[in-house]
């Protein structure tokens, strides 16, 4: 495309770090839009991006989180489209982004499918993943789409609970709307004004969701559920203590949901959970919340 500059938006900073990494490797200029609130709670990743030579541009509008960073990145992109490519961090945005990002992320599901068949000689019963925009979940689910017996569960952020209005459970509690170039699930008021989402996990803190997830819900291919902030923290502790893996706050939501699945499974059931991101980025928040 003969473009020398890439931009991206980022919530938790994982996508920002990945983009900064590739820009460093290929000698491209790199600007990452990040909500100011997210920069505060994901300091480690901000540091990483800067270390990799990217510029992290704080977004002060709206809730100062992922939605606002995406809007600002889109503004930059339309203004600089001739010199700049926008690498979107999730399966959201205008076509063909949801499709492209899904295709790139489906390495997750392809490898998982191959490996589980090799190891267990059969397909899993459940796939569980957290859903913010939905990229890690779509990456895991998509290669199993035709395997009808494999059940998909997308876990959204219940934040401070539905009655508080402070959550990010778009498919569970939201309606349909058009944001950032696609028609999908959206947390909005009756006039179509987008609501401000909330989650302890920066990467889930988005009032929209990828349109393909909305489609999976519509056709019944996947079920979407919500886990709140407190439960996510419990999920994080569970995996740390039982498996010695400290997950990021985002997939901690998926981990917690395994407790709810208890009654639907037996000891021969196979469940694959996608662990997106990494836990070190959240140590500050978790230490504060858990008072360790």
């Amino acid at each position, binding site marked *: 495309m003969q473009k020398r500059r890439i931009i991206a938006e980022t919530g938790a900073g994982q996508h920002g770090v990945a983009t900064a990494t590739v820009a460093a490797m290929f000698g491209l200029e790199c600007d990452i839009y990040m909500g100011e609130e997210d920069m505060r709670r994901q300091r480690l990743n901000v540091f990483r991006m800067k270390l990799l030579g990217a510029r992290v541009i704080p977004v002060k509008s709206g809730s100062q989180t992922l939605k*606002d960073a995406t809007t600002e990145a889109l503004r930059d992109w339309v203004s600089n489209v001739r010199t700049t490519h926008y690498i979107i961090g999730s399966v959201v945005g205008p076509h063909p982004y949801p499709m492209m990002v899904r295709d790139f992320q489906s390495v997750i599901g392809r490898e998982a499918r191959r490996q589980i068949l090799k190891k267990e000689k059969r397909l899993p019963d459940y796939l569980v993943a957290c859903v913010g925009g939905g990229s890690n979940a779509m990456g895991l689910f998509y290669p199993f789409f035709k395997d009808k017996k494999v059940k998909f569960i997308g876990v959204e952020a219940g934040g401070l609970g539905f009655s508080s209005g402070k959550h990010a459970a778009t498919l569970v509690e939201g309606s*349909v*709307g*058009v944001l950032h170039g696609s028609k999908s699930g959206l947390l909005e008021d009756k*006039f*179509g004004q987008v609501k401000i989402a909330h989650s302890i996990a920066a990467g889930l803190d988005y009032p929209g969701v990828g349109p393909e997830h909305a489609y999976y819900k519509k056709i019944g291919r996947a079920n979407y559920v919500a886990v709140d902030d407190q439960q996510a923290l419990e999920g994080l502790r569970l995996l740390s203590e039982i498996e010695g893996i400290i997950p990021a706050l985002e997939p901690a939501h998926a981990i917690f949901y395994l407790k709810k699945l208890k009654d639907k499974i037996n000891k021969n059931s196979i469940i694959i959970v996608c662990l997106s991101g990494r836990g070190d980025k959240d140590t500050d928040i978790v230490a504060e919340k858990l008072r360790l």
Partner: protein
Amino acid sequence: MNRIEQKFKELKKQNQKAFIVFITAGYPSLDITYKLILEFSKVGVDIIELGVPFSDPMADGPIIQESSQAALKNKINITHILNLVKRVRDKTRIPICLMTYYNPIFCFGEKRFIEAASVCGVDGVIIPDLPPEEGDSLIKLSRRHHLDVVCFISPTTSIERMKKICAIARGFIYYVTFTGVTGPRQNLPSDLAGNLRAIKKHTRKPVCVGFGVSDSRQVRQIYKIADGVIVGSAIVKKIKDNIGNPDLVQRVVNFVKKLKEC
């Protein structure tokens, strides 16, 4: 023939160009917007674009973003704006377009919106984030109710797409000067005249130029090469600079007069 088509017919007869004003509805209040519309029509503004405030105005720069936020804080919604147009129709025939992002229309219901807009006396809709490819149902509805869906062409529009847009465009074609968002710019781009000529090869419909226009020099330049000019952020900024001032309406109208009579 609706008011927009009529207006351009009249302008052509008089060898005049259209001066189109954008303001955010409900900024700083519905009352001020009402007064501004009436005063604008008295000083010869040709068409009014009323911005429907939206939480995530992707195509807008800081000035219009801020005005949108302020209007939303005052809980302004589409119903208020439709009622405002209805009220103002008693006093003026000036063509009025609603400029809105798609989601508020989607949530209101396309059919319900077009019908209500038509009844209230709206003449056109301008939707920056609805590509014509997604606008089939809305365009059909609007035709039925004699509302114009104003389409955009930008410096990055391909020739093929430009031809398609010219074919479905109604009212006027909105040519966006820059790759970018709304907001005043020092200079108009050098490829403006060339790009307008290219569009004119494919359509006889009026082409009006907007985004970035903030002074009379630019308005003059555009009058030479296009059928009309659209000024938005510069006027919204004038409103912002005069908030709290009892002479706000007069000052903003004077500013608009000076721009218009460049």
